[in-house]
């Protein structure tokens, strides 16, 4: 039985909240023939699983988002789809998702969620050409995905982190075309996961990432989500702190350039006692870009002693960019700490003046300060992802102008 974890809880004590209807967009969609094409290589069990999801997929339409238009979304022939590349030192034991057994299937169904949009999530769930199940994390894991303007990429992965295991994962998404990736994580009792997701989206790209994490007792999660985008990118991270004393820290950061757009959503649902959830993000907008940042913390009844915090700062460098922040807090238990702090602005005038008084021109000074902000951010994960941090620092230095 699939139970889809939803973002907003629309009911309380017999009262109901109305939320906007999802308007549909008509796009040249995949249909039966594409489904048949893809299940040809599946075993019976797996093809049944795909079909079931396909029926749900068919009944939905692509969302007519107001800020980021999906009108130019073009679904290309499936046979051109690219697979992900897995890099693991010495790890040979990776199972293709098509070989999912009963237990794994059960876990997979438990970890179902809406994603940034159910239709888009199902697109990858139904039409992925590859996908893996990861259960061993002795060595750090790197997964790279690619998509070009003629070759889309659809992937669905399942990660089960065993009790008391520490895992480290880096997911790198390069996108020049359509990329949809769904990752489901189960962190079992006492396990921990340090994950870095870095995304680079070029101007023709549509990149969708849907990550769902379920944390059992004492599990700890740190998610670093980094994006440099010239195209359209929509990262969605949903963390369910089911377990007692489970902890999560999500650190998003982004730089959007040229005409890039980012619509990012970070949801933390705290239902286990004394669970902790923190979202601490920053973003920089240049040129003619748009960014929407949606952190939300949801605290369920009986989640006593829980701490939920959001902090975000958006820096606007150009007069032609638009930023939107929607920091939501939804609380049904009062023995908690829930707060948020958000700022939107530009680089502090006084800071700029100080640097200029030391001989740095205005643009140089701005650049220094922005790079310093990102560096502060990367320094926090440097111990775990040293090489990647160097890479990201260089990328930022290059693109900040």
């Amino acid at each position, binding site marked *: 039985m699939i139970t889809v974890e939803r973002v907003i809880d629309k009911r309380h004590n017999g009262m109901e909240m109305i939320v906007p209807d999802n308007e549909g967009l008509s796009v040249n969609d995949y249909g039966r023939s594409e489904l048949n094409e893809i299940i040809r290589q599946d075993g019976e069990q797996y093809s049944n699983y795909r079909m079931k999801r396909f029926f749900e997929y068919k009944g939905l339409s692509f969302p007519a988002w107001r800020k980021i238009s999906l009108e130019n979304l073009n679904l290309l022939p499936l046979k051109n789809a690219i697979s992900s590349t897995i890099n693991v030192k010495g790890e040979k034991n990776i199972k293709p998702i098509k070989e999912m057994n009963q237990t794994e299937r059960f876990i997979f169904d438990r970890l179902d969620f809406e994603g940034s949009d159910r239709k888009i999530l199902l697109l990858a769930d139904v039409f992925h050409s590859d996908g893996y199940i990861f259960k061993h994390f002795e060595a750090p894991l790197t997964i790279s995905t690619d998509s070009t303007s003629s070759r889309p990429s659809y992937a669905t992965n399942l990660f089960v982190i065993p009790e008391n295991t520490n895992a480290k994962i880096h997911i790198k998404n390069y996108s020049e075309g359509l990329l949809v990736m769904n990752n489901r994580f189960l962190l079992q009792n006492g396990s921990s996961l340090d994950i870095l997701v870095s995304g680079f989206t070029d101007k023709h790209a549509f990149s969708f990432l849907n990550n769902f994490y379920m944390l059992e007792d004492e599990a700890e999660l740190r998610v670093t989500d980094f994006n440099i985008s010239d195209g359209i990118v929509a990262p969605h991270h949903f963390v369910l702190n089911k377990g007692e004393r489970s902890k999560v820290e999500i650190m998003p950061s982004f730089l959007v350039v040229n005409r890039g757009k980012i619509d990012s959503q970070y949801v933390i649902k705290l239902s286990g006692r004394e669970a902790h959830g923190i979202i601490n993000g920053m973003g920089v907008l240049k040129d003619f870009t748009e960014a929407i940042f949606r952190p939300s913390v949801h605290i369920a009844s009986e989640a006593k002693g829980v701490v939920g915090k959001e902090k975000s700062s958006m820096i606007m460098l150009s007069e032609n960019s638009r930023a939107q922040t929607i920091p939501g807090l939804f609380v049904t238990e009062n023995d908690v700490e829930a707060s948020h702090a958000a700022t939107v602005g530009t680089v502090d005038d006084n*800071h700029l003046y*100080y640097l*200029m*008084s*030391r*001989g740095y*021109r*205005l643009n140089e000074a701005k650049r220094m*300060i922005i790079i*310093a902000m990102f560096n502060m951010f990367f320094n926090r994960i440097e111990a775990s992802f040293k090489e990647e941090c160097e890479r990201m620092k260089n990328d930022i230095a290059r693109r900040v102008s």
Partner: protein
Amino acid sequence: MGGRSVSLLKIEDLHVKLVDEDIEILKGINLDIKSGETHAIMGPNGSGKSTLANIIMGNPKYKVTSGKIIYDGEIINDLGVAERANRGIFLSFQHPPEINGIKLRNFLFTTKQKNNKTSMIEMNREVETIIKNMRMSSDFLNRFLNVGFSGGEKKKNEVMQLAFLKKKLAILDEVDSGLDVDALRDIANIVNEYKNNSNGLLLITHYKRILEYIVPDNVHILMSGRIISSGGKELAEQVEQSGYSFAVAESEE
């Protein structure tokens, strides 16, 4: 001993207001600092001391409505902040801002490299000397620019930049505020080391105390945007004794 009589900084009948408002803050300032000289500007709160310091640096918050600022023979009214800095003007901030993510050591070196190509070894040696003279530990250089610095540490950082960058005209905006005697002494030592025949120093202060350590050649009293009295260091004594009102009385004669 005074040096050659070349004006390092000459201010002629300067009128200044805030960009956003129409109230005049400086109402006709005249000042002449020759190479090798140390001038002190004293005045009560609200007299316009900080404004003077900032307008010389070119802070875009302020606007010159009339008058000239001449630095090293060049009228710099229309020059930007960075350009003034690169010509050798340095301002020690009264409230240095905290800028996260920029390591002090890196900041010092990068800034120095802008104007003189010095080797890393040389720079390291210079900065270590200064650190030692200020009785601080090298760890200080690994901290982020002013982040979490105490008042004294912030001022020491300003003065360290002054010494390290070897600027030509140094303006110290209330560098003594909030300092204990020991810190004041350390800072004064560095400043005195820095002083020579070809550079100049403008001390902006509220209290006479610092002038015991950094001895000025000239003292000016600034009140309500005007210099109402100028003299030697005895002027500072008089202010100490009789408060600023005496200077008003004097100027009215």
